[in-house]
Structure formats: C-alpha cells, structure tokens
C-alpha cells in the first residue's frame, strides 16, 4: 500500500516556505450549517453560517452569519486565506477571518464546495448548483468553467488530484465528471453510473483511493485514482449516502452514512462494512469527517439531532452538540489563530 504524506503538507513545504517558518496552523473542526429544528412557519432558519470548534468544545462563528453557507476552505498555501461557499456566492478573507469580501458577482450563486490547487495558489475551483467556477488569480475573479457538462450541472462536490492538479473530479447530480485541463473541458467518467454523486473524497495516504456517496446507489470506490469505479457496501446499495470519509492516517479506514442508514465503517478499504455498534439519536447522517489529529476519531452530524464523535468505531459516541442543526459540511480547516 502506498502511503504518502498528506498533500497539503507537501504543498506547504514546496510552494510556500514562509508559511512553515511561522507558527504552524492547527486543524480546527468546522461545521457549515443551518439551524432548522426550531424553524417553524418560517423560511428562515434560526441561525446559520460556519462554526469552528475550539479544543475545549466551544463553537465559535467563523465569518459572517449568512443564511446558506455550504462549506469552508482554507488555502493550503496561506492559512489566513479562507473561502466560504455560500448561496450568495464566494466570500473570502485574507486575514484569517478578520475581514471578509464577496469575490463573486450576481451571476455566481449557490456555491457548494471550493478547492484550492495544492501546487499553485492561483488556481481555485468551486462546485456550484449551476456548474463550475474557476479562478486563476487566487480567488480574486471568477468565471464559468462548465464546458462539457450537461444542462443539468448541479455540482455537489469537487476534488483536485494532488499529483496532477490540472486534473479535477466533479460530483454532479448526473454523475461523475473529470477535467484534465484545470476545468477548461469536462467529460463524463466512464464506469460511474449516471446518478447523483453527493460527496467525493480521496485518501490522503493513498492517493489512488477515492470514495463517493450517491443518491440511491450507495457507496462507490476507486482504487486506481478515479479511472475505474465499483460499488461497495452492499448494505447501503440503495441508500442516499450524503457523507463519506477516509481516515487521513489510514487509507483502509472508511466511513459512510446517509438517510436512515446510521454510520457504517470499513476497516479494510471498503471490502467489508459494519454498522456502528451503537446507534446515534438519529440514523439520518448528513456530514462526516475523520479527525487528522486524533487517530480513528470520526465526527458525524445527524439531521437536527446533533453532532457526535467516536473513537471506537461507534461503540460509544460523544456529543459535540449542534443540536437542531442541519450540517452540510463537516471538516477540518488549517486555521492560523
């Protein structure tokens, strides 16, 4: 099994020497969410935005309180450079969250995920409900980059191949698409079904391994860097899988969860899957991530019934609160604080 250092470390060391000379950033858990449980007779959730969790467990706001923020991303070259993927467009901070600016205009909307090229900070990509946006000036300006996508181009997620950052994989509601030229043209990934791909992630230690959660077709994996795909987790074969995760320290440790499924683990790279030994208060899983610091720690968000973590594959769960939240994305940001 190939094991490589996490690509953000490689990028940091090679592309941005000033960054590691300073105090290294610490990965902080974030949740992009809206508070919906108490939302009655109203179109407006009671709270929304991105929260980050301090080591002692308190949640604090990251960035402005905007109604629909789907995700957050930190530039691996500069931890003070933060992007928020918003309904309004893309909101960016260049000073670690002190000040923020909308860097998109009226034509850009419903941004769902943002990724930064690990080799060149100039290249930033965004998956949106209306296709793909690309910036070649570090997020200052954006243009549409949806050529080759069908009319239905709702892109839920986007990922960069760190060994070849010109290559991108796009999870859309009509399947998986690939670009090998920085988003200039997209083509459908053969062998992946024409179903909604809801979440895509890649192992940080074995870059050939990818995992995708789908709508109605369960979990799919690739072991050859996204060139061929096959279904795994037969018990989830017909599920809507909103969350998939690969442990950053162990490419064999996977997790998946979706609507009514609860959390499932695989400890052998996806050959065999088992449900968490203890059920969460809700079996509706909306987001998940493994912890980069605490080995084997998995964080999982349920629909409106709280966010939890486990360090023993679900034998016990610890509350991380966020009761009532609908968490769209859960992950770690290398914030400089």
């Amino acid at each position, binding site marked *: 099994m190939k094991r490589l250092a996490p690509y953000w470390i490689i990028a940091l060391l090679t592309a941005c020497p000033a960054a590691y000379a300073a105090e290294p950033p610490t990965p902080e858990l974030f949740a992009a969410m809206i508070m*919906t449980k108490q*939302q*009655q*007779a*109203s*179109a*407006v959730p009671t709270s929304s935005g991105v929260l980050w969790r301090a080591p002692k467990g308190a949640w604090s706001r990251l960035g*402005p*309180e*905007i*109604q*629909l923020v789907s995700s957050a991303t930190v530039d691996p070259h500069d931890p003070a450079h933060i992007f928020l993927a918003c*309904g*309004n*467009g893309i*909101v960016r901070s260049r000073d670690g969250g002190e*000040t*923020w*600016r*909308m860097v998109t*205009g*009226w034509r850009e*909307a*419903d941004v*769902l995920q943002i990724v930064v090229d690990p080799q060149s900070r100039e290249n930033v990509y965004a998956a949106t*409900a*209306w*296709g793909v946006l690309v910036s070649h000036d570090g997020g200052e300006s954006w243009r*549409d980059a*949806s050529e080759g996508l069908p*009319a*239905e181009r*709702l892109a839920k997620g986007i990922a960069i191949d760190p060994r070849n950052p010109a290559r991108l994989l796009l999870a859309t*509601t009509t399947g998986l698409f690939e670009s090998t030229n920085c988003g200039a043209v997209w083509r459908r990934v053969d062998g992946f079904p024409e179903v*909604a791909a*809801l979440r895509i992630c890649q192992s940080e230690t074995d870059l050939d391994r990818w995992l995708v959660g789908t*709508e109605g077709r369960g979990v799919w994996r690739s072991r050859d860097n996204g060139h061929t795909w096959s279904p795994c987790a037969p018990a989830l074969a017909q599920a*809507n899988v*909103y969350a998939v995760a690969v442990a950053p320290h162990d490419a064999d440790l996977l997790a998946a969860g979706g*609507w009514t499924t609860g959390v499932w683990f695989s400890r052998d790279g996806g050959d065999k899957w088992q449900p968490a030994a203890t059920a969460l208060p809700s079996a*509706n899983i*909306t987001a998940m991530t493994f912890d980069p610091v605490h080995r084997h720690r998995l964080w999982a968000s349920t*629909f409106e019934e709280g966010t939890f973590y486990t360090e023993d594959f679900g034998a016990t769960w610890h509350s991380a609160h966020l009761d009532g939240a*609908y968490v769209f994305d859960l992950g770690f940001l290398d914030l400089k604080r």
Partner: protein
Amino acid sequence: MCAFFASIRLSRRTLTRVPWLCLACWIAWTQALAAESVWPAEAERLAALEQRRERVIDEAIARIDPQDPSKGSLFDIAATVSRGENLDWARQRIRALNDPPSGAMFWMHPMVLAMYAGRDSWNEDDWAYFRELWRTYFPYRGDTENHWLMYYASLYLVCEMFPEAGGEAWYNGKSSVENMEEARDYLRDWVRVTTSYGQGEFDSPNYIEEYVRPLSLLAGWAQDPEVRQIGRMMLDYILFDFAVEDLNGLYGGAHSRIYPRYTLEPALTPAASHAWLLFGQGEYQSTAGCLMLALSGYTPPAILDRIARDRETPYVQRELKRTRWRLRHMGPETFEIDGRVTAPVYKYSYVHPDFVLGCCQGGTLQPIQQQTWSLIWREDRPRGISNTMFAVQPHASPEEGTRFFVTDWDTVTDLIARSKVDYTAPDKLEGGSPYEQIFQHEGTLIALYDIPEDSRFPHIHTFFSEDLTARTEAPSGWIFAQGGPIYLAYRPFAPGEWRPVDWTGLLHGGAGGWVSSNFAELAGKSELYHSEARQNGYVLQVASQRDFASFAQFQKAVEALPLKFSLQGTPSVRFTTLDGTQLTATYGQPPEVNGAPVDYADWPLFDGPFGHAERGSEHLEMRYDEARYQLDFTDLTRSSSTPSQQ
C-alpha cells in the same frame, strides 16, 4: 361627405335601409362619445390618485402610537418620517427593529425606504447607526426572482446614497461603485430575460407586491436616470400584465404563486390593494406595496388605467411565461438562458365583463404554490366573498423540490413545509401536478389527469365556493351553479364526494402563522369535490347569465352539448362548447380546437386586444382604441402615439 355618398351606387334594397343605417351610425357615435365620457379627464384621474396616495400614507401614520416604540414596522417609520412627524418614536422604533437586523432582502428594502423617505429628518447619529447596520449585517440574497430583485434594487439605492464609500463601509466588502455596477448589471439582465422570455414568478396576486416594492424604490428614488427608468418601465410592464387580467381589481387567470387563504378570497390579495390605489378599483386595504407605491410617486400611464377598467367586450389574453430556473429533473420543453434551464408556460385567459377564466398547461411549472387554473366572477363589493373556483391535484415530492431547490432529496419536502405548511397536506389548495393537463377555449376549460398508483395523494379536488348558489347535481352528471352574474357547469368524469375545505384541519388549526389567519372564516361552508379516480378529468363551462333567459335554460343548453370521454387507458375527451367549438384532448398529446392542434410554438409573450409583445422582443405595445403606448427595453424608452392622453 355629400359627394361621397352621392358617388355610391346604392341598390333599392339598401336605400330602404338608409334611415336605419343613419340611426345606427348616430347611436354608435353617441355611444362613442358616452364611452369617452366614462373616462375622467386626466387631471381628475391624477387628483383622485393623489388622494388615494395620501390616504395610504395617512393611515400608515395613524397606526403609530408615538408613546409606544414597541410597535410599528419599517414601513410605518418610512411613512411618518416622510412627513417629518413622530421622529422620536421613529428613532426608538428603528433601533428596536434592528436589534438585531434580520430578514435579508425583506429587511433591505424597507430600510432603504425609511432612509430615503426620512432623508431630511434623520440626524447624524441616525445615519451613523444606519451605516453600521449596513457594514455588519450580511443579508442573504435569497433563492427566488423576487428576492434578487429586492436585494439588488435595495443595494443599488443604498450605495447610491453613499457613492464614495469604499469596501470597508459595506457588509460584502465591495465599494459603492462596485455594488452599484453589480446591481445595475443584474437589473438590466432581469429586464432582458423578463421582456424576452417572460417572467419566471409570473402573475402572482401575492408576489406582485414583491415586485412592486423594489421597482417603486427604483422609480421613486434612483438618481441614475437609467436605473430610475428601469423602475418606471418595469412597473408599467408588471402592472400591464395584471391589468389585462384585472376584473374589478381582482387578478384572474393562472398564477405562479398564491397562498391558501388568498385562493379563497381574491379581494384579500396585494394585487387587489394595488388596483385600489392605482386604478380606483375595489376597496382600500393596507399593504406595504401600496405604501411604497404611494411614497414613490409612481403614476401609471392613463392607458393602463383604461386597460385595467374597461371590461366592455370579452377577449382572449394569451401570455408566455417561463418556469422558475430548474436544477434537476428538467422535464419536457426545457431550454437554456445563459446556462440556466427553464421551460415555457403558456397562459390563456378569457376575460369577460362578468368573469375571468384562465389556465396554464399543467405540470409542475412552479414549486409549491402554483394555481394552474382559476375562475373569478365579478362582484361589486368582493370583500368577504369567495368569488372563485379552481382545482388541485395535490402533489408533493422530493423530485419537485429538488427540481427547483439545491436542498437534498431527503430533506427538501420537510424544509419546504417548514414555511409552506400545507405543501405536504392532501387537502391543499394550491400547487402544480406532473399528472395534470389543462386546456381552455374561451369560457370552456378541460382538465385530464393520469395519476400513477404510487403518487403521494392520488386524488383531485375542485373548490366550490359557499358563494355559489343553487348548486345542483343533475342526473346527467353535470353539477350546475350560479355565482354572481355567471352560470357554471362542471362535469366530473369520475364520481366524487363532497368534503369540507381543509378537511385535515391543518390550516383551521392555525398552522403556518399568517398563512392560516382567519382561515376558518374564509373557508366557511365552501366545499371540495373530491375524486379518487387516478384516471380522471372534467369539463367546466362558464357563461354569463345575460346570455340565457334562465338558469334552467343554461342547464338545458349545457346538457344538450355533445360530450364523449374515456378513462380507460389514456384519458381523453371530446366536447362541443356552447358556441359550437369542438374541443378534443387526449392526455399527453396536444389538445385540438375544431380539429387543429393548439399552436404553442407561436405563443406570443403578450397577445390580446390591449397589447402585444413578441418573444425575444424586449418590447411591449399597449393598445387602447387608437392610443398606443410603447415600452422599448432595448433602449429604455417609453413613447406614446397619443401623448395628450398619456
């Protein structure tokens, strides 16, 4: 003239008719004169409009208790500061309302209104307070057409107030110049798309207000001549769209969005309040849209006033609209506009002096609140009267939700129902259905349904108002009734049963907040004709009472009309209307009128006696008698062929 007559060689038979012809000419001439006198002189119209404006502002101010800063809206504040009154109260109240600010674009536009209306009244502390709000509160842009229009109109105007402000002054980090440029560009594009392909959130008796408000802001306060002109011309445009289906102040026909309580009483709608203010129709009621119109000083052109009020002659009004932008599950007939997918909506309304019957083709054209067809009839004082009829195939599905919203498949219907509480109710009164096909010829409407077995609510229901009288279920299968000045005949193709409106009790029980306020009173004893046949359909024939000697004669005439339908396999129907037109429809196929398929391909943007607009034209011509009023959005000009009347 004598020489002209002398030169005509008239037959003896014609000559014998000359006295009668002269008499007819004289009658026509005097009637024409009389018709002209129906319309007030322009000065009179403007004076009456000004009086109504003042009343709207007066009543908003009268609601204020200057001793009680715990009550009052931003609109009330705008009204009173526009006259420099109750300033202490206004200062306290505006701070209370913004602790903290909320509501996104529904906060932005009344804040801008209050700032502009009180421009000469607010002091330095007030301005500093306002600037801080706009620096720190980050409003959501929203996810509908009206949201974006309110957002960008407000953003433009507030930045125009402080044109030199840099990015540090605004919540989004952009300078005033950048924000104004973005807003102007959006507004131009919205105008282009609307006047080329049709409005996406079209003909809503409720949401017309959400267009009138931001456009009033632009028309009333924009300093930039182009932006101000966009406000004025699009108000003309949107109000024309209403005026051609206006029956004594009520908005007839199919609607993109309507709330349940307003389906029951059309006179309650904001559209009706706008008709009172602008055209003097119906009765006064307070709405924010009216207040904004009143404060803006917008004056509709005289031709619009006449189009809204002249209901002497029945006519067909055809309009092309489009669906809301679609994200998934695109459906048939879709097309792209600048990378966004939509589909055409074919509206057809028959506007009669006594009623308006209108429909669109069916399908899920809009999420949640579509009214696919409706009938309203004339009432001189329509408040408190349920002068309407419509039908619904209740449909709620993740497919519909995800077609229009980014939300996930498993949460979308639940989250829709958090605000539109009746979305998942089997007895809801609004909403489109993918299993419904509607078609109309003048006063006759035909609906066919082919509902799959696994549909969430495999039934249809048709609303019969308590204000229909003499409802009769004839042995022939027709259900007859009288409503105001009309007769109607409804022929269900499958049997049904009578149920109370809101039989689940959801809205009666108060769910949904203001959506269900006084719902029990509004529903009254009205009923739904509920049918659970999945292959289904009906014919509705409407006629004016003036065309029949009696109700019995109407019933006899309808029962004599040839009607053949089948629900075996694919539902189909053939019906000959009261005027002898043969209508044929088979579910899933284009309907036919006298054997010719309805030509949807050439459906114009607007077509009727009062105006015309071609697809893609960015142009509208309003017509009234010889008068012409042109809106040319390519260069944002208005012109009139009879300037003295405008």
